[in-house]
């Protein structure tokens, strides 16, 4: 035949599929690992170890601040006495030790757990909804949980110490209901358009908040003032018993979420793709909904409505360590804890001796960042 024939026939000659790689597997693995193309165990240890140390440093530094300043030397002296190392006693540490043990330390620990819990819930919702702007506060999950807790308080359940462990469960039920309703509203034909998710969440949030406001207005004034203070976000925990139970919720929920880290990676591709890659999407979704609501319920019952931590922290962490949830989840948890401890320190020192609710500080830092992402970084939102 004519010339075209030979040209077309020769196009198929070279074999791409079976051609050996220029580098062997070990070499390729080394190259990808060293360049950060994929996550490795060494990088994981470096990031998580580094953040854990940084978290510890932030917590210790923040122990200084409050209504009365305790200088760093005294803080260290008290800490070393508690841990049984260093000099046994120094003059003037007694009052400081009492303040630190009964006021500062529980508050810093609560802040760390609340911040970590909110951040990890944010990461989970973002993967579940394939939406980098998802946040339990913005999407109305927090207000659902807050409504559950408020109702429990209105009817006097959980206001007594014996019933206090019940409050996170009321929060859990409220949070789960609002999460499921939001999901159903936003979903159309198997898709979750980013605008629908935000819109459904915002509307739901407005309605739930209205109901909470209604509850506060029918409560007797003395109790409703306490409810309002809690709603605006506060980190005051009265005793170590509640604190340790709260820690159990957060650490337990976080561990169960960590187990699904790789599955969350794959869920970000969308449900149909995740299914075709071997993920049992229906089961995983139910589990993630359940855990996100459980953590939100626990966090909200302790600290009220603290916004934006679940959105800005994972976003910043993702930029620093990448999107792999195996590192993103624990790193966000540590960073969220650090962020909230620092924000709370600002909240209790900026107008010292008066305090402002920590929710104001997080909303004033997080809100502008949310707007920035929404207005100028649309490319990241698809």
């Amino acid at each position: 035949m004519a010339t075209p024939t030979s040209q077309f026939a020769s196009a198929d000659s070279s074999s791409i599929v079976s051609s050996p790689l220029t580098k062997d597997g070990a070499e390729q693995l080394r190259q990808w690992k060293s360049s950060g193309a994929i996550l490795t165990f060494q990088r994981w240890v470096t990031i998580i170890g580094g953040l854990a140390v940084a978290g510890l440093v932030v917590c210790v530094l923040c122990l200084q601040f409050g209504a009365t300043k305790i200088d760093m030397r005294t803080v260290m002296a008290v800490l070393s006495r508690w841990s049984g190392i260093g000099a046994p006693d120094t003059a003037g540490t007694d009052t400081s030790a009492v303040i630190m043990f009964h006021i500062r330390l529980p508050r810093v620990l609560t802040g760390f757990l609340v911040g970590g819990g909110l951040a990890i819930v944010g990461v989970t919702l973002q993967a579940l909804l394939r939406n980098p702007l998802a946040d339990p506060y913005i999407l109305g999950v927090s207000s659902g949980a807050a409504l559950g807790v408020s109702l429990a308080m209105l009817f006097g359940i959980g206001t007594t110490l014996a019933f206090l462990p019940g409050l996170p469960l009321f929060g859990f039920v409220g949070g789960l209901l609002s999460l499921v309703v939001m999901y159903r509203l936003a979903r159309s034909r198997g898709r979750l358009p980013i605008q629908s998710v935000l819109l459904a969440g915002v509307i739901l949030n407005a309605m739930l908040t209205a109901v909470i406001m209604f509850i506060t207005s029918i409560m007797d004034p003395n109790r409703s003032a306490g409810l309002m203070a809690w709603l605006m976000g506060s980190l005051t925990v009265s005793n170590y018993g509640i604190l340790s139970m709260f820690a159990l919720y957060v650490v337990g929920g976080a561990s169960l979420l960590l187990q699904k880290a790789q599955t969350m990676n794959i869920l970000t591709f969308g449900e149909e793709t995740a299914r075709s890659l071997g993920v049992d999407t229906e089961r995983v979704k139910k589990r993630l909904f359940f855990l996100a609501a459980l953590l939100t319920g626990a966090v909200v019952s302790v600290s009220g409505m603290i916004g934006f931590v679940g959105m800005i922290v994972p976003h910043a962490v993702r930029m620093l360590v990448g999107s792999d949830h195996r590192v993103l989840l624990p790193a966000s948890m540590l960073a969220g804890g650090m962020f909230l401890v620092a924000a709370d320190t600002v909240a209790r020192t900026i107008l010292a001796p008066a305090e402002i609710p920590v929710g104001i500080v997080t909303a004033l830092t997080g809100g502008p960042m949310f707007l920035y992402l929404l207005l100028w970084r649309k490319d990241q939102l698809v």
Partner: protein
Amino acid sequence: MNEQHIAWEASANAIVLGAPRIAYEIESVRFRYHAGSSDGADWILDDVGFQVKAGEVLGIVGPNGSGKTSLLKILANVLSPQQGTLHLFGDDLATLTPQDMARLVAHVPQDTQQSFPFTVAETVVMGRFAQRRHTFWSGCFGWEDEMDIVVAAQAMAAVDIAHLAWRLVPDLSGGERQRTVIARALAQSPMVLLLDEPTAFLDLQHQIDICRIIRQLKEERGLTIVLVSHDLNLVSQYCDRILLLDRGRVVRLGCPEEVIEPEALEAVYRCRVLVDRHPGTGLPRVTLPGRHLSGGT
């Protein structure tokens, strides 16, 4: 023999060693999206039945809305039909778990949008998910072994994206993203590959590359490939058999000469077409009528 060959052969063996001759058996499948609605007129697929032979390249063509993509998703077990049965290598599709399914079948969807900044290498390695063993903590502390990396790297080399390993997927062009998703599908080491418009975003060179890879996967690894495309010429040149769908029904199924011919195409697409022979391969070639002919005679 090195790991790479082991990796590739593991998936091809089942076909070579006394494997069934039929990959898919589809019997009287009916499907619609809103299962609850009562009016019977809106079936997306209506009484569709055919077989996909093991090791063939089957092209599905048809006008917009004819049910091509839905049919492919049903083959991928992403959608379930309301009526009818599907068997894959003898197993009822309804009984396979997502993980079983992902080890056998890889699905490349039409929409490859991705908003989370994973690197290309991370994305492709995730194709290994179903092939890896899962234990209680492996979700967080399970790491890819050398085999996973080799298979992923080879898949990336096959679609010419090895140099993009470090790039973030949202920053890629449409064509690069398309090839990343195809590489992820290849990394699954599947026996069946389902492709929805695999060349839609690709320039000419990469279209030819993808088509060549499709033929090589069939010839060298015995893969069964089902692809959906609007490009009748591409389907005619690269597919062994073609299935022509119209309004949810199979109009024709056969080799390119049987399906790509004016009578069938004009009835389905409702426009005039010219069909002649490709000068290189002798296979049917479709040309749209030019402006002088479109008025019709």
